[in-house]
């Protein structure tokens, strides 16, 4: 898919991955997440190989693919609850307040109790953003985070990314759209077709 790629991202920084369709943006993100294994080379986190540190590393990042991982037959809130329970990152008493505030933050307070089946693509993305907001992870791997979102939704993404960087987190996003960050804070990585 791609070769000769070498980069490092440190805390408080973002990396915007750009490239044509089929250039391997998704493949790169999935490799970083440890879903795919590189044929050659390796991904390191704090100096340790990601693929040998599986579970520990997984708690350090969250991966949001271009399709939000939501169950159609559950409500937005039930989906969020499941995501939290799966990670086990919050004590039970904090779950509902955290979900409430995350839904408000992404502008989806009215959507939480509707079945995901009845939501539009953009509304689903907002629920997925709430899930992202709820997951305490230092690294965000975002595949097309602003697609299908209106201007207000894009602003939510931008402010969430900025807040994540401010707290020393790392964001790797594959998107062509501007995330509203200063270029030195968010360098671009151009993936080209192998010529």
């Amino acid at each position: 898919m791609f070769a000769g790629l070498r980069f490092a991202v440190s805390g408080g920084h973002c990396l915007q991955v750009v490239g044509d369709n089929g250039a391997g943006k998704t493949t790169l993100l999935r490799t970083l997440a440890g879903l795919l294994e590189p044929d050659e080379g390796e991904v390191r986190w704090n100096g340790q190989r990601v693929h040998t540190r599986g579970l520990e590393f997984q708690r350090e990042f969250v991966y949001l693919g271009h399709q939000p991982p939501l169950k159609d037959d559950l409500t937005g809130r039930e989906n969020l609850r499941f995501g939290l329970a799966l990670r086990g990152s919050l004590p039970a008493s904090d779950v509902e307040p955290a979900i409430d505030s995350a839904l408000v933050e992404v502008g989806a307070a009215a959507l939480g109790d509707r079945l995901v089946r009845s939501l539009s693509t953009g509304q689903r993305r907002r629920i997925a953003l709430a899930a992202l907001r709820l997951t305490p992870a230092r690294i965000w791997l975002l595949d097309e985070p602003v697609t299908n979102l209106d201007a207000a939704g894009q602003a939510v993404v931008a402010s969430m990314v900025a807040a994540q960087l401010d707290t020393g987190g790392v964001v790797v996003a594959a998107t062509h759209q501007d995330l509203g960050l200063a270029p030195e804070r968010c360098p671009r990585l151009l993936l080209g077709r192998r010529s």
Partner: protein
Amino acid sequence: MIGAALAVLARDLRLALRRPGQVLQPLAFFAVVTVLFPLGYTPELDKLRQIAPGVLWVAALLASLLSLESLFREDAQDGTLEQMLLAGQPLAALALAKTAAHWLLTGLPLTLMAPVLGIALGVPGSAMPGILSSLALGTVTLSLVGAVGAALTLGVRRGGVLLGLLTLPLTVPTLVFGARATELAIAGEGLSGALYLLAALAVFAVTLAPLAVAAALRIGSE
């Protein structure tokens, strides 16, 4: 880890409640297949009683297998399988939880339904406890072995046919011990030996199958 596994189990049960039709399908299949035998063979209960163990077990086996095809497929399609893969939890535990949900939704109802179908095959009432206990143990193994097949054929062309080819040979021991236990129950003899063997198979499957399922799921979602 236990909390995450329980969350998976609870979610799958809740999803099944929202779409009860999917739970009923394997049961209806079980009934239809069993009812075909008197029609295809003979209505004489004395003769049917002789083949009842095999009929009940093969029909339960096929019903369980049919419902397994979609065990991981929907999760793979809507992205929640990846979510589980990346949750920072041991995948084998989550796989075991999903299989447990499958057993509760398919294996257990099939077991509870078997006595009713047994009556239609001339099985005496005294055999019902034996049939219930043998099927309850056997379907656990069937769910687990089938889950391995379902994980391996995830996203594969004509996965359903392949799932049968991969899984059915591996269910031979369950079928042998299970049908024998049922036969003994119908004959009114002691069946504890066969039940021990079924239980041993179930314990073995609970220990090892989730690991194979986890490995297969990781490979399948590359």
